[in-house]
């Protein structure tokens, strides 16, 4: 029964979605207010219906209703409750429903927080969101229905993929989808603006916090995925350049470019057509990612159940969405010329250089991901493009970004003197170069590591310089009062935190990959081995029973000198649902370093092989993105966005630099 209610709710949501995608659009075109206003209750109804469908799926999982094929393949009676709940998004069908629920959630939020927008624009934005939703719901109903029954129902489910039975993996997809799907808001905004044929500053300002929030979620989602890979996959890697990872990284890079170009467009009115194009690309890449992950054209360790029919559907959907959006752009974008005036040496220019680099980085990943497919399609042979390629091309592409990040935020809008900026950063620069040389001489770091560390410090210096500029800029009151005022500027503080996050990330990557130590050893119980000043003593392996697995748990004591630091418990788990054992690493986490032990195989003499790892600053790899996400959320809460919501939309910014009446801006 519960399955049928869920299925019915999905079908009704589909119907509502079609209404929301068409009626308000026609209303906006014909100037019919009540048709336009229909979008708002429709968004609410759609969200409510999908929430019901989602609830039904969760109930089926919690109640072990194995008559639903999806539940039977992805859950079991022994699965702990937490993982039964998260199993709902553990495979293709359910994760699509979650995706759709989140899309409807964003639509609902937009419907209720967009009162300040002109009615036609609001109607168009909501209709575009619903158009995307219509495609996805059709896709689910046609090819991926999570409520499908199997008869007779099995008594026991096949259990959730053991890899996904981890807290990090339970939280990773919802966060990631919040980001992926959140990019629909700037996309809908861009398409609506193109349909409208006009674009004023208030709308730019309105879309900025939405984009930033979506970006923050995407950042946090990718971070969690990386952290999960580190703790669950068992060999201490944190990024594998796997197609599925790339699928999330491409939209992230474009969204990062977008939040920067929105800054130029919103604050200075410049390069608005470019911003629109980025908004279109951002969501298009998240659709492309969905296609790559779920269609089976690419081989990935993240094995989603793949099906060619799904691939064809998504490919057509992708072509329709991207094709029509780009067509619209080609027809209308010429009308959005920039208005702000700026010199070559100005913050605007540097933000655009940032955009060029980020988009090129994203294009590089796309190239590397699709290149083997192209060659194969051309019958030119099979090649593999993997981590060594991406590492080789990605670092030279992103290094200039890091250098830019150190000083560009200090450059003033409109125009600045290169000399002023240089003088402001002269002493930090000298200091950092000296520190870099010091690191090279005093530590085992190679010159590349020292240079990279100096880069991270350079970014920190830029952030500090920005703070100093702000404090100096305020004339009123004493230092504390000025400091308080500056702290209250959430946009600025958010930006500074996010940039600090980049510095942490660079330092983390540099030291983990450059100075990390990894040793494979073979130890008998009682034997010990020394590594980087620590003694690892292997105490032995004992059995451990889990709810749906049996485990062999190793005990490794770690000493520094004679003083015990910690005990690690690496495991080898055998889940009842599959024969292959899974490694569960024993990790001692620390701000400065992680100790990581993974258990290998038992040998005839009772010895075990294991991998010991010392990973300096590895936590910074996730601390950095965490700071970025927090910074993004802070920036989205800046005071002026709230103010602009209450104010009437500001007068239309004219095209081509003159102020013209709003009527003449419409292109039709």
């Amino acid at each position: 029964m519960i399955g049928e209610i869920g299925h019915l709710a999905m079908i009704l949501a589909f119907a509502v979605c079609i209404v929301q995608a068409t009626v308000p659009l026609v209303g906006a075109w014909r100037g019919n207010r009540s048709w336009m206003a229909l979008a708002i209750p429709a968004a609410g109804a759609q969200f409510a219906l999908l929430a019901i469908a989602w609830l039904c799926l969760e109930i089926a999982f919690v109640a072990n209703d194995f008559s639903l094929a999806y539940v039977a393949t992805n859950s079991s009676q022994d699965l702990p409750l937490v993982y039964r709940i998260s199993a709902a998004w553990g495979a293709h069908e359910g994760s699509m429903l979650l995706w759709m629920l989140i899309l409807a959630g964003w639509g609902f939020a937009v419907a209720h927080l967009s009162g300040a927008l002109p009615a036609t624009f609001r109607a168009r934005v909501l209709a575009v969101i619903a158009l995307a939703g219509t495609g996805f719901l059709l896709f689910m109903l046609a090819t991926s229905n999570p409520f499908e029954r199997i008869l007779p129902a099995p008594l026991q489910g096949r259990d959730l993929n053991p890899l996904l039975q981890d807290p990090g993996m339970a939280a990773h997809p919802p966060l990631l989808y919040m980001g992926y799907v959140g990019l629909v808001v700037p996309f809908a905004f861009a398409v609506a603006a193109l349909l409208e044929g006009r674009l004023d500053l208030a709308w730019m300002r309105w879309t900025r916090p939405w984009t930033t929030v979506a970006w923050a979620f995407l950042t946090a989602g990718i971070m969690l995925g990386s952290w999960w890979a580190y703790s669950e996959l068992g060999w201490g890697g944190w990024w594998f350049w796997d197609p599925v990872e790339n699928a999330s990284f491409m939209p992230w890079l474009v969204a990062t470019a977008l939040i920067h170009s929105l800054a130029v467009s919103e604050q200075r009115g410049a390069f608005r057509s470019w911003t629109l194009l980025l908004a279109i690309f951002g969501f298009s890449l998240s659709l492309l990612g969905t296609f790559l992950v779920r269609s089976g054209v690419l081989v990935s360790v993240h094995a989603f159940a793949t099906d060619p029919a799904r691939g064809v559907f998504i490919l057509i959907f992708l072509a329709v969405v991207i094709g029509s959006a780009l067509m619209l752009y080609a027809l209308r974008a010429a009308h959005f010329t920039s208005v702000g005036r700026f010199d070559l040496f100005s913050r605007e220019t540097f933000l655009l250089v940032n955009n060029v680099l980020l988009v090129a980085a994203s294009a590089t990943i796309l190239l590397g991901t699709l290149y083997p497919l192209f060659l194969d399609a051309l019958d030119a042979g099979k090649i593999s493009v993997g981590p060594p390629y991406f590492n080789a091309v990605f670092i030279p592409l992103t290094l200039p970004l890091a250098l830019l990040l150190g000083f560009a935020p200090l450059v003033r809008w409109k125009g600045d003197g290169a000399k002023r900026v240089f003088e402001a950063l002269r002493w930090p620069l000298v200091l950092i170069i000296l520190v870099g040389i010091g690191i090279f001489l005093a530590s085992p770091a190679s010159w590349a590591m020292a240079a990279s560390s100096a880069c991270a410090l350079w970014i920190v210096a830029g952030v500090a310089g920005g703070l100093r500029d702000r404090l100096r800029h305020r004339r009123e009151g004493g230092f504390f009062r000025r400091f308080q005022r500056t702290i209250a500027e959430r946009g600025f503080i958010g930006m500074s935190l996010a940039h600090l996050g980049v510095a942490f990330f660079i330092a983390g990557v540099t030291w983990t990959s450059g100075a990390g130590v990894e040793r494979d050893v073979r130890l008998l119980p009682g034997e010990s081995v020394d590594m980087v000043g620590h003694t690892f003593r292997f105490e032995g392996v004992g059995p451990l029973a889990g709810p749906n697995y049996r485990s062999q748990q190793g005990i490794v004591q770690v000493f520094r000198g004679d003083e015990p630091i910690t005990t690690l418990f690496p495991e080898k788990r055998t889940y009842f649902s599959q024969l292959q054992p899974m490694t569960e690493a024993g990790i001692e986490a620390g701000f400065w370093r992680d100790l990581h032990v993974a258990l290998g195989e038992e040998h005839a003499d009772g010895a075990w092989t294991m991998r010991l790892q010392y990973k300096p600053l590895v936590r910074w790899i996730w601390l950095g993105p965490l700071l970025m996400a927090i910074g993004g959320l802070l920036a989205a809460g800046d005071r002026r966005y709230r103010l602009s919501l209450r104010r009437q939309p500001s007068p239309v910014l004219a095209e081509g630099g003159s102020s013209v009446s709003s009527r003449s801006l419409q292109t039709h």
Partner: protein
Amino acid sequence: MSASNAHPFGLKGPRAFGAGSILFEIVAILAFALFGAGPVIATQGDLFEPRDFSFPAHEERYLRMINSLRCLVCQNQTIAESDADLATDLRREVHRMIEQGRSDEEIADFMTARFGEFVLYRPRLRSDTILLWFGPFLFVGAGLVLLVLRLRKRKDALRWSTSGSVRKRARRLLEEGGVRKKT
């Protein structure tokens, strides 16, 4: 990840090699026969089998090599990450060749002679991979050139639009527009 090789060859289905090519199944099976037929084969490969190196530089090269060779029977993993038998054998082979003093290029040749270019995660620079290797730098270069051109054009346009006669013309047009709005 270990889950990828529940089947002896790690083959989950006909699509395990992306394009589902029979050729690769054959290659994989041949490879298994070639390397896996010795008497010292455990039922499962040991990912963390310790190895001795005569020079520290050898270990560095070994790690670099195994991290850039594809495990052909896995979903999408290097031989450094897979405990499939084939990966285990290839790791052993790489270790042996490095200890024999063979160069990276010789090892890559050895691998591609048996498994094709598909085994290299870092494609060699050849006529059909030129775009792959230089594409990224092309993107940046083209992007920067376009940007500079746009900025220059803008500057000219702005200079032109601020000259006196144009301003006068613009004002006249504006006024006309205002009149039209009233009617």
